[in-house]
């Protein structure tokens, strides 16, 4: 799981253009939206694309996303349980 969390952090930094940020600076348990990384709705859409492109996970239910994208840790848990690639 540690490896997957690090991988996700790197991917998030890349696809969301979080310039100058390192994986170490992202707390895997901190909120991705709101007070944490301060991501916005377009970022949320990019994370959905990331899940499908890199892990073969299609998120059809928007309400589901709220729990999955709570933090990097919750994303990693969902990816490890549902990935197809």
């Amino acid at each position: 799981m540690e490896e997957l969390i690090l991988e996700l952090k790197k991917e998030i930094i890349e696809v969301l253009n979080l310039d100058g940020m390192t994986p170490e600076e992202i707390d895997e348990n901190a909120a991705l939206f709101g007070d944490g990384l301060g991501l916005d709705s377009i970022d949320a859409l990019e994370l959905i694309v990331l899940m499908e492109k890199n892990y073969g996970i299609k998120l059809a239910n928007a309400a589901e996303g709220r729990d999955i994208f709570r933090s990097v840790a919750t994303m990693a848990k969902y990816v490890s349980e549902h990935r197809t690639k």
Partner: protein
Amino acid sequence: MDVYILSSCRITNDRLIADGKEVLTRNCEKGPAWLNTIYRALGIQYPKFFKMDNLAKVGFLAAEVVMHDTEIARDRENYAVVCLNSASSIDDDRAYQQTIASKELFFPSPAVFVYTLANIVTGEIAIRHNIFGESSFYVYENFSALRLYDSIKDVFNNPDMSAVIGGWVNYDEDCDVLMLRACRLSDPEKMLLSENNINNLYK
């Protein structure tokens, strides 16, 4: 009615010129790396910059230069943003097209898609500087000082408008920008907004 240029910014592939003085010369790759270099050299703290496409970035940077030390809080409804170019949003359009180019790798990027309109740059400038006045974006075949002059001057036909951030903001692999801050005032020490003066600043 005379309109005067309060400040100007020229950005090319190699140089950043503010009010006629060269303030930065490129010593990195051209393109995105150059834009990031300018951002850092100007000491800006605005993380959203890194999410913008190249056109919005270069317009944003030029607006930062012409708005330097300018407080418009009381005047924000009377400020307008007017931009012109020839390449529209082609640079970002190409980037978006790459995300949908093949059936196997069909992953349309929302973050790239939102910049596939040239006038997004006027919105980014207005948000950054709290400008509530009108904004417009025109696409023409090529640069024309006369057209830029007319576009800025037209804004002042509305008696409520007191100032304009406006200019030529073009990005298509090459970076070609002339941004002006113009105001309706009578100040012989400032440069008159004229076709000739715009041409001189664009050189």
